[in-house]
């Protein structure tokens, strides 16, 4: 199907803008927020439910944890088969979470239109903005969509199942020619998926041709969902 709607990022010419230079393209999928919020972990140990989303699938999600007076990107949470986002312990700690309308157990095939940067134009005086119901006109962060602050755009979502002996060492290739923003989720148990980063047990990284992951001690049978975005981080 031909592209029927396309909006470029500020300063980029829409006619030849690369995929990552676009703010809106009806062939690409963005990252809609289902819910977001602040959570304070109550006293005590054990698993704690941050929120119940009701989506009926394992959604993409991210979390942040408050460290003193500042915030850090957090990789210790998970979503489970009871539609919950959970953490363990961390009594008294504050978290901020985002849950997205993306089922990480589905596959999204990469659609590539153009990886070559397009021409530049002057600063725009116009763009596309969509206000959220109840949001203020002037609050950019509260808009549903703003071509001057474009959304993350999904390039691909790849699910793979593993049952071989550890370590689990694999990669998911892409054709973006840039190092992309990415999220890797590991199935921790048959009912839980967690976002993973770099610890003594795991390594995730990206190059201009693939996203790589190594797990030294993964579950005996597990799945990995790799979400790659068109937005570069190089």
């Amino acid at each position, binding site marked *: 199907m031909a592209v029927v*709607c396309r909006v470029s990022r500020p300063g980029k010419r829409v006619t030849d803008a690369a995929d990552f230079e676009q703010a809106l393209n009806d062939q*690409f999928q963005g990252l809609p927020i289902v819910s977001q919020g602040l959570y304070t972990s109550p006293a005590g140990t054990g698993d704690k439910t941050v929120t119940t989303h009701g989506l009926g699938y394992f959604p993409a999600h991210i979390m942040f944890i*408050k460290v003193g007076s500042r915030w*850090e*990107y957090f990789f210790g949470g998970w979503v489970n088969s009871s539609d919950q986002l959970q953490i363990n312990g961390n009594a008294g700690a504050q978290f901020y979470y985002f849950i997205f309308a993306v089922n990480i157990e589905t596959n999204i095939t990469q659609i590539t239109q153009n990886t070559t940067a397009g021409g530049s134009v002057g600063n725009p005086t116009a763009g596309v903005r969509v206000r959220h*119901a109840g949001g203020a006109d002037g609050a950019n*962060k*509260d808009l549903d969509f703003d071509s001057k602050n474009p*959304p993350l755009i999904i390039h691909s979502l790849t699910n793979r199942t593993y049952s071989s002996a550890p370590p689990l060492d694999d990669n998911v290739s892409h054709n973006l020619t840039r190092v992309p923003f990415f999220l890797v989720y590991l199935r921790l148990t048959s009912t839980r998926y967690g976002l993973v980063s770099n610890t003594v047990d795991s390594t995730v990284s990206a*190059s201009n041709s693939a996203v790589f992951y190594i797990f030294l001690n993964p579950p005996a049978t597990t799945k990995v969902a790799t979400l790659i975005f068109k937005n570069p981080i190089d």
Partner: protein
Amino acid sequence: MAIVCKITSSNLESGKKQFKESQDLSTTWVVPGTPPTGKTQIASVSHGLGYVPAFFPTFQNAGFASGRRSYLPQQNFFWRLSAEADTTLIRFFFEEFDPFQKPSGTYTFKVRVALDQIE
């Protein structure tokens, strides 16, 4: 409120807020011959938003994953590299656990700052 604007692929639909980008910032840390002990701020960048944004701190170092880019925090048995955000700055930290092994070379930090507020 009824939907007043909708394009397929969930790209643009009033009522569904998209996660939005704001800016990319970068800085470097040249690891000194004797890295700091304890938890030490090693770099910072200003985002200027006036509130705490969602952010995605990344790093690249020749000694890690063949120089590929990955996320902070990064922790091994010997040290931890992390990034923390407040209403004005993204600060990068090094924390030593065991002086037996030390980092080396240059770390290039890049942080993708979202427009979305987390506090």
